[in-house]
């Protein structure tokens, strides 16, 4: 079934183009109207596609819209096509809806920024690229969006580019992502080489059929390597170990950007990509185990770093890294629905948390330092209310995070179906995630208590300015809070109540991703109770440490293990490690190459030698040139003109004769090349060079038969009857 899906990404792209061209001259209201209007239109089209057209389409195929052939090279044919099914449709709704809310929020948050139109143009460009990413019908089309969002991420992280640190953060994000993209490309090439297609539907069909993708390659299977390389791409975009380092730095961008790109949408692209190519992963339990292990490790590791961060947005950034780890455990244990479910709920509550951060920083005169906050509960009632909802959601106590997190952990505990021999990795990841969930509850509660409870620790100057944000910022916050509160309802574990149809998410996703993972009721209930208890424990611990401000136990703890605290604060010095292991050696190599290639080879040899040569010949010709005596030049000119005249009037004689010998006979062809000779040419042929031409006044070819065998010299005189000039050619010939 067809539907005009291209409209969905096209509208934001149009908005971006219009704003880039005309935005500078327009008022702020017009700019917001265009930007938000574009994304709202896109949202409406997506809603129409998802709720009106999609139910009428085949559930596995969904809607497809091909703009035309993009690449056609031999057997490779790639359409610039979009596909909307349950999975990509859900992502589209998240992107356009949360994108719209964040556009509205930004209109308040960026109010005083002089680069208002540029900001909204980038935001629109981002939304368009993200929509191309999720709607892409094949890996290359997805890759357009994949790179597009990378570019927008770079542009928006470095939005305030006048600060070197911000510009550097943008560069870091871009470069780290390049490493991941390399993996993405390799994975893509592998799939093309063995499966012969890049279209998701065909890839998944090929993978489900087994065959080509299960053949051995480099000590494992094709599917394993393809899945692994694609996952390398995912670790870059979705900030997993070892490529997570860019995301915390990305907080240099404006807060709405962090909410939209670095929490709700772009960073989840990796999870989406794994779900999109799920059949390939299902063929390779080893790759699934790696995805799961990386996800679990990231979830715990980032949570631990989150314990010690003192910047509001940094805490949230590590929280995002950690939550993305949860999602990867979800998709890594074959529980694709669980991963996407958490992606959905996380989009709401984490966007809400980031926007709260923006609101708080707005109130705190731009500072994000939580050590000087506190007591904001009464000053910012709306922000506080929203934060509480999102905080409880991310802790997994109630609200949406409760259901999605439990579905991931429960899925990991029962991953025998997908992971086969590696099911133990799934179970281990489930346990690690439970600990990470405890950690999540702890650092989020620490954040909550330090910011909102107790008394303000800010200076009087800042305290004086604290105020609730304007309606344009609070409105989106409230909507996100509703989403964070109720969003989990779409994924109710209906099976638990013998009502499988309660799970709306499953209804949409199972045709695309296959049936839901079977989880026994025992596991389900055990995980729910266990995880909730752990979350409550985390909140309780945080209250003990930070309730109403820094309390005695937290100071005692910091004093007892100062080195550990410092290490966590320094993010375990991973950045420094990379600096030492990778960045510095590369810089050294670059310097060496600069010195050898640039300074010596290019500057000295490739530039110096021609310069010396030009200088030498310049001196030489200058001595011929004389001192500027015009008459001398004129004489040279006259000589030259005479020379040209001389050569121009010589007959078109051949460079060599073409002689064909047959017995005693010879055929001579005196044409120059194969051009017809000018009519004014006369040829005389002296076949024995005896001074008397045997044939004269003839055309360019002649025939002669010798009386006896021997060696002869043929001489041909060419005469130009018009200019009365002549020239001659000789050639030896032997006849037998």
């Amino acid at each position, binding site marked *: 079934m067809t539907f005009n899906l291209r409209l969905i990404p096209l509208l934001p792209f149009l908005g971006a183009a219009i704003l880039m061209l005309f935005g500078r001259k327009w008022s702020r209201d017009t700019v917001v109207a265009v930007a938000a209007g574009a994304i709202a239109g896109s949202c409406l089209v997506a809603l129409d596609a998802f709720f009106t057209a999609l139910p009428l389409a085949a559930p596995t195929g969904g809607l497809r819209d091909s703009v035309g052939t993009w690449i056609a090279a031999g057997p490779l044919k790639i359409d610039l096509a979009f596909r909307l099914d349950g999975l990509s449709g859900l992502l589209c709704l998240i992107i356009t809806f949360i994108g719209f809310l964040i556009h509205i929020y930004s209109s308040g948050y960026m109010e005083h920024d002089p680069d208002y139109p540029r900001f909204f143009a980038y935001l629109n460009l981002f939304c368009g690229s993200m929509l191309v990413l999720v709607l892409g019908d094949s890996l290359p089309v997805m890759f357009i969006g994949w790179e597009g969002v990378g570019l927008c991420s770079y542009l928006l992280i470095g939005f305030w580019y006048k600060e070197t640190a911000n510009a550097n953060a943008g560069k870091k994000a871009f470069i780290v992502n390049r490493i991941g993209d390399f993996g993405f490309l390799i994975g893509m090439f592998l799939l093309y080489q063995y499966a012969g297609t890049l279209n998701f539907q065909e890839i998944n069909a090929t993978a489900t059929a087994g065959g080509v993708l299960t053949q051995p390659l480099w000590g494992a299977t094709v599917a394993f390597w393809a899945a692994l390389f694609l996952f390398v791409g995912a670790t870059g975009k979705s900030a997993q170990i070892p490529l997570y380092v860019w995301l915390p730095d990305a907080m240099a961008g404006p807060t709405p950007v962090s909410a939209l790109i670095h929490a709700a949408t772009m960073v989840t692209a990796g999870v989406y990509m794994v779900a999109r190519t799920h059949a390939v992963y299902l063929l390779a339990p080893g790759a699934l185990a790696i995805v799961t292990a990386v996800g679990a490790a990231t979830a715990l590791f980032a949570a631990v770093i989150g314990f010690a961060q003192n910047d509001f947005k940094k805490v949230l950034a590590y929280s995002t890294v950690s939550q993305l780890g949860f999602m990867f455990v979800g998709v890594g244990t074959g529980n694709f629905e669980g991963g996407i479910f958490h992606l959905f709920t996380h989009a709401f509550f984490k966007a809400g948390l980031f926007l709260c951060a923006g609101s708080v920083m707005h109130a705190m005169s731009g500072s994000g330092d939580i050590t000087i906050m506190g007591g904001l509960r009464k000053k910012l009632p709306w922000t506080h209310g929203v934060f509480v909802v999102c905080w409880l959601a991310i802790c997994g106590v109630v609200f949406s995070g409760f259901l999605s997190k439990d579905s991931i952990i429960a899925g990991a505990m029962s991953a025998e179906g997908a992971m086969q021999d590696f099911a133990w990795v799934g179970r281990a990841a489930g346990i690690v995630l439970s600990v990470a969930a405890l950690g999540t509850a702890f650092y989020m509660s620490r954040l909550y208590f330090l910011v909102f409870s107790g008394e303000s620790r800010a200076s009087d100057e800042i305290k004086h300015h604290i105020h609730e944000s304007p309606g344009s910022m609070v409105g989106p916050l409230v909507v996100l809070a509703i989403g964070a509160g109720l969003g989990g309802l779409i994924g109710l574990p209906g099976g638990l109540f013998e009502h499988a149809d309660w799970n709306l998410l499953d209804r949409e996703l199972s045709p695309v991703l296959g049936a839901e993972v079977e989880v026994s009721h025992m596991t389900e209930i055990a995980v729910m109770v266990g995880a909730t208890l752990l979350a409550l424990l985390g909140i309780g611990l945080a209250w003990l440490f930070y309730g109403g401000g820094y309390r005695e136990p937290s100071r005692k703890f910091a004093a007892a293990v100062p080195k550990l605290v410092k290490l966590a604060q320094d993010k375990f010095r991973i950045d420094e490690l990379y600096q030492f292991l990778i960045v510095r050696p590369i810089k050294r190599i670059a310097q060496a190459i600069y010195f050898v290639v640039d300074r010596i080879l290019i500057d000295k040899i490739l530039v110096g030698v021609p310069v010396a040569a030009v200088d030498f010949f310049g001196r030489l010709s*200058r*001595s011929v*040139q*004389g*001192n*500027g*005596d*015009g*008459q001398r030049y*004129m*004489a040279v000119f*006259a000589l030259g003109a005479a020379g040209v005249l001389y050569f121009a009037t010589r007959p078109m004689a051949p460079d060599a004769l073409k002689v064909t010998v047959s017995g005693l006979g010879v055929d001579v062809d005196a044409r120059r090349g194969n051009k017809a000779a000018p009519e004014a040419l006369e040829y005389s042929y002296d076949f024995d060079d005896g001074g008397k031409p045997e044939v004269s006044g003839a055309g360019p070819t002649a025939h002669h038969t010798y009386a006896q065998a021997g060696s002869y010299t043929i001489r041909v005189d060419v005469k130009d009857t018009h200019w009365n000039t002549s020239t001659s050619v000789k050639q030896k010939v032997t006849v037998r």
Partner: protein
Amino acid sequence: MPTIYYLILSFALFLIGTTGVLLRRNALIVLMAIELQLNGGNLALIAFSRQLGDLKGHVFAFLIIALAAAEAAVGLAILVGLFRGRQTVNLDEITLMKR
């Protein structure tokens, strides 16, 4: 009269002109010699034009006369400027380029 006579005269004019251009030292005379060359060319054009019964040669001759006038105007202006600056029109003295 056969065309060849005109051509001989034309060639003679051109040769005298060329000799003047190459040998005379007075820039004013050099300009005049250039006129002579141009007119030698003109004469050849007219002669051929007459022989072939084709007016194109005449047209070209007129064009060259107009061009010669323009060239004389520019050349003289340069000479006047040169004389104001250097008090000489001797070509041997106007060699300023470094070796």
